[in-house]
Every structure is written in C-alpha cells, then in structure tokens.
C-alpha cells in the first residue's frame, strides 16, 4: 500500500513538474503531403522532447488557401493559434493588424541577425522586430530535365530562352513533350517570372517589386510576353488544370523533357527513386544562372495568452532555427536551410548548387523574391498579375502589346 502511494506521489509530482514549465503550441500549417508531413513532424518531436504539447492544426490544400481562410476566422474570433505558416508580405499584413508577437529576445539569444542572410531576416521582421521564423529557402527558377529524352531527341540543355525554343522544337519533332506544364495560374506565373528574370534582376525588381508603370509597359516586358506565348506550343494539349506534381511525373516517366518549377519538384524525383545527375538533372532556368528567385516558408508567431503558452512559443521559435531541425526538414522538403554555415554533406548536388547560388546572388544583387509565390507583392497585386498572365497564355488572340497594357492597368487598379 505504501509503495503504491509512494509511486503515485512520484508520478503526481513529476506530472506537476512537467506541467509547470511545459506549455502547448498550436501550429497551423498546410504541410500535409507525405514528405511535407514528415518534415514538420521533426519539429513536433523536438517540441515534445522539450516537454511541450504540440497541437497539430493541419489544413489541407496546396497553396494554403483554405489554411488562410481558417486562420482569418480564428483571428477574427480572437483565438489565433500560437504559430501559423505565413510568408512574405502577408507577414507584414498580419503585423500591421497587430496580431503578431515580438520574438526579439529569442532572436538575440540565437543570434538570428548573424546566422540569417539579410534578405531572409528582412522578410521575418515587422517594423524592425522579428515576428516569424524561417524554416527553409526554396529556389524557384529551376529547370528540371530528363537527360534520356534529350539523348533520344538529339537536343542539348538550353541556357537561354532562344536556345530553349530551338531545342524544344527538336524535342517536339522527336515525339516528346518539350515542356511539362500544369495550366494553373500559379504555374503559369512561375514560368512567366523565370522568363522575366532572364531580362536581369534590375528589370525584375522594377517590374515586380517596384511595380513601375514604365517597366511594366516597356519593350522588354513585351519581349517577355512574346517568349512566354511561344512556350504554349511546347506543352501538351492536356496541360490545362494539371497539378504540378503530375507535370513532374511526366519528366520522371520520360514523356516530357523539361519542367520549370521550384525545387519542391525534387521531392517528386526522390520519391520516385531517381538520382540527381543520373536520372534527372537540375539547371537554373534559361538565362537566369546567376540569379536566384527565392520563396521562403516561415512560421509567424501570434500573440497568445498564458505564460506557459508563451514560453512554449518561444521554444518553438528557437528550435526552428537550430541546425538539427533546419537540416532534417530541408532534406525532406528539397529546399535549403534558411541559416548559413550549415554542414552540407547530407545534401545532394542540386541543393549544393542552390546553396552556392544563394550565397553568390546575395552579394551580386541577383537574389530576388518570387512574385509567383507571394514573396514580392501582396496577394491583391499578385492576383492581378496572375489574372493577366494566365489569361494571356490561354488566349490565342491576345497580343503581347495588349497584355502589357492590361498588366499595367491591373496592377494599378489593385494597389
């Protein structure tokens, strides 16, 4: 009897001890596909090791549209989760509304200003204070290619868009689809911004960050639209509404030669048991070899009540930037770590080249935020650009000159 009582007391005491310092974090995210879920589970395990409770709040739906809808209703109801997967200018929008908490003490202790490249930390701050923690950096301007298809059709990997067109014609003549593409607005925009970037980072920044009317109406922009329209010939008839991963599998199966897609495509190749450099190759999108279009995923921290919850939230922010999580998460996700000076040996050749390009481009000013992935402009302007780009790609009668005019007007109307 005594023994049992003693045992129970110890259990009770240890429980009490655990609950005294442990808190609960509720994390809203849309990492729901196999590889993604495995990636975020790493963070969950780290939090549980620290004695906290992880309340998973996963909302399925690729671009996070449903997740954002849920987040808004929770925020309006005055009950936001501790952390939510928000990125780019949207962090600023939430910051302006006063929902985000200040992480400066965690950032200072973890030396975030030192370990994060300036471009990354800039996105994570609102009003000069850290409000979010970055989990990864995606490079968007990638060209994924199946070397087997190139061999069979006697073509070589293009490094400029003009070359792309000549090579794609050869591939088409050999009976393959030159460009695997999914006709969804964001995929159209991904292709479009890769072409725009080949006109140089200053042009890109002026168009998609500065939203300069002059640049949007310039001859260069008309050229971009011209090239973009030509891509229409190189996609197969079934492209409309196709998901990006289906397009990737066309490259994997050898039905298509190339795909312009961010490095999350690598996850599909890996899942299919393909090896980088052997079964598939990765190159920067034509004409953008020195440049890097980034897309940074991050978890923004909301203001929550309760000391224990706040403590858990700070621990979450700290763990996100620790090397262990950054490495495991990004190995699973196909992206590269947001923090610098990480051991590289676990990563593959595509990731290495991504890391090199990331560092190099940040010094040459060729590191640019992705418009298609909501890093450059807010969702209103982005939506306006999407509409024009995707409509132009599908409307055979629209000329590039009309498109440029529409683009400039749509951007102005949405500001």
């Amino acid at each position, binding site marked *: 009897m005594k023994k049992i009582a003693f045992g129970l007391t110890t259990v009770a005491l240890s429980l009490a001890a655990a609950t005294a310092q442990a808190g609960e974090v509720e994390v809203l995210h849309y990492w729901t596909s196999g590889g993604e879920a495995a990636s975020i589970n790493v963070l969950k395990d780290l939090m549980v090791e620290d004695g906290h409770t992880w309340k998973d709040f996963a909302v399925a739906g690729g*671009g996070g*549209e449903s997740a*954002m*809808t849920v987040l*808004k209703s929770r*925020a*309006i109801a005055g009950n936001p989760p501790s952390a939510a997967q928000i990125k780019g200018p949207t962090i600023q*929008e*939430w910051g302006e*509304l006063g929902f985000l908490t200040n992480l400066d003490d965690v950032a200072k202790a973890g030396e975030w200003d030192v370990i994060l490249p300036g471009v990354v930390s800039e996105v994570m701050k609102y009003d000069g204070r850290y409000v979010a923690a970055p989990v990864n950096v995606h490079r968007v301007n990638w060209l994924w290619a199946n070397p087997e298809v190139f061999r069979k059709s006697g073509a070589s990997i293009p490094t400029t868009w003009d070359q792309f067109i000549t090579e794609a014609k050869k591939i088409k003549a050999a009976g393959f689809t030159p460009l695997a593409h999914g*006709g*969804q*607005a964001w995929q159209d925009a991904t292709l479009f911004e890769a072409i725009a970037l080949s006109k140089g980072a200053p042009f890109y920044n002026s168009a998609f960050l500065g939203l300069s009317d002059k640049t949007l109406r310039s001859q260069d922009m008309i050229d971009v639209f011209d090239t973009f329209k030509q891509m229409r010939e190189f996609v*197969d*008839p*079934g*492209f*409309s*509404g196709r998901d990006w991963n289906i397009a990737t599998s066309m490259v994997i199966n050898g039905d298509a030669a190339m795909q312009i897609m961010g490095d999350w495509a690598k996850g599909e190749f890996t899942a299919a048991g393909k090896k980088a450099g052997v079964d598939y190759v990765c190159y920067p999108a034509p004409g953008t070899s020195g440049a890097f279009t980034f897309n940074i995923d991050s978890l923004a921290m909301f203001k929550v009540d309760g000391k224990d919850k706040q403590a858990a939230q700070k621990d979450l922010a700290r763990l996100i930037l620790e090397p262990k999580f950054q490495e495991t998460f990004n190995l699973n996700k196909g992206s590269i770590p947001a923090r610098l000076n990480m051991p590289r040996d676990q990563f593959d050749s595509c990731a290495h080249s991504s890391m090199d390009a990331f560092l190099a481009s940040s010094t040459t000013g060729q590191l640019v935020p992705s418009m298609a992935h909501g890093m450059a402009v*807010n*969702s*209103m302007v*982005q*939506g306006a650009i999407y*509409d024009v780009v*995707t*409509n*132009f*790609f*599908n*409307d055979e009668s629209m000329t590039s000159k009309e498109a440029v005019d*529409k683009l400039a007007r*749509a951007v102005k*109307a949405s500001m």
Partner: protein
Amino acid sequence: MNTKAAHSGSGPTQSGRPARLSLADWMPKIVMAPTVIMTVVCIYGYMIWTAVLSFTGSRMLPSYNFVGLDQYERLFNNDRWMVALGNLGVFGGLFILICLFLGVTLAIFLDQKIRAEGAIRTIYLYPMAISFIVTGTAWKWLLNPTNGLEKMMIDFGFEDFKFDWLINPDMVVYCLVIAAVWQASGFVMALFLAGLRGVDGDLIKAAHLDGASTFTTYRRVILPSLKPVFFSALVILSHIAIKSFDLVAALTNGGPGYSSDLPANFMYAHTFTRSQIGLGSASAMVMLGCVLAILIPYLYSELRGERHE
C-alpha cells in the same frame, strides 16, 4: 383545448383566465423563437453584414472605413468579373433551357406506361445523388483531350477526332453546361413526372374523346396545367446556376486562364485568397441581386395566385 382555441380566435375583448390564455397563446411563438432568431441572424444578418462590407474598403479582415460605391466601380471595371458575369449568362441560360427541355421530354416518355419504369427513373434521377464535386471530377477526366473521350475515339481509329473544349477558352463554358445538364436534368424529369401523374385523368379522357391526338393533348391540355411545376423548376435551376461553385472548382478551376470563371468563384477567390473582402462582398451582392431578380417575380405571382383563390 377547444374552448381555448375558440377564445383566442374570437377577439381581444376576452378577459377570462388571462394568465393561462396568454401562455397558451405564446407557446407556439416561444417554441418557434430559436429557429426564427437563428434564421434571422444567420441568413439575413449576414446578408446585411455582407452588404455593409461591400461599401467598405475591407481587405484582409473586415474593416469599417466606408468608401461608398468604390468597390462596385472596381468590380465592373474588372475584366475577370465581366467574364464571370458573361459566363453566368451563357451557362445559366443554356443550363436552364436544356434541363427543362430534356426534363420534360424524359418525363413525357416515361409517362407512357412503359415496362421497368422504376428502374429507368432511378437511372435518370441518380446523377442528382452525386455532388457537383464528383460530377466535375468525373467529367474532367472524360473531357480531358489526352486521356478522355478524344483519346478513346482516336484509339477506336478516328484519327482526326478532336474534342478539346476543356482547354479551349472559347468553348470551356459549354463543358460546364454539359456536366451540369447531365447532373440536373433527371431531377427536372422527376419534378415533371410527379406533375404529370397529378393531372386529372378525366381531363385527358375528355380531350381524347374530343378527338385530340396524344401530342395535342400534351401541348394544349397537360403541359399548360403544369405551369406551377415549370415555375418551381425554373426557380430551382436558376438558383443552382447562380450559386454554382463546386462544379467549376472541380471541372475547370476557372481555367484555362479565367475563361470559365463564374461569379461565385470570383467571389471566393477575392474574398478569401486575395484579401479583398470589400470587392468580394460587392460581387456577392450582385449575385444576390440576380437571385432576387428571379425570386421576386416568382413570389409575386405565387402570392397573387393565392389571393385569387
């Protein structure tokens, strides 16, 4: 109980047992109150809220800086909205007409006292049991040029067969019509069949005695007497057309480009994913206007009809 009912019905001058009387009087109202309040708040309340928001500059979250009719002005200057409205016209018009035509025809055929009517009726009606999401997904596969109907015909040897409406911005709206008609015409058939069965048999016999052919009987006697059914079907179909969202979401997702967008999809995209609650609310109000434009004449004719009786 009888006396109570008589009391309450016989006028306000009654003074006997006032406490019990009023409780009995109030009982139905008390019982009904929660549902009435729920309906008023959750339907009309939110309707009014949306109307208010449509006059504000709300972006990511609702805010109350009133900007007058700005959002409506922006809305009607928006290419995509005009495409969505035009699509609603084409889609709604064709969908309603074809559904009514097919529904009436099928109902008349089924009305000929044929064998296995029950089985055939079930087959026709069954699509209605499927949600538009499933319909949209299934038709997306059927209409996809690389693995659907077109491929099947080519595999059968018709090398030149071409059916690429799904990826043709000019034709894609007709794909929506095909799928929606497939789904809803069986339902219209069921409505009309019920109506046909309700027509007085003596009337038909009388018409036959007067020497009217079956065709004339249907045209001059039976169908005119089905006017209320026709109106109900029209109202229900127009509602389906105006609120159509899931079919587009599953079948085309508004694409190619935004050429198959309908107002509901526009509203969703702008309110929830593009942080333009004001603009989205304005578009919702225009949709409400469309519904009212159909509903008010209908209600008017219905209520007037009652008064005549």
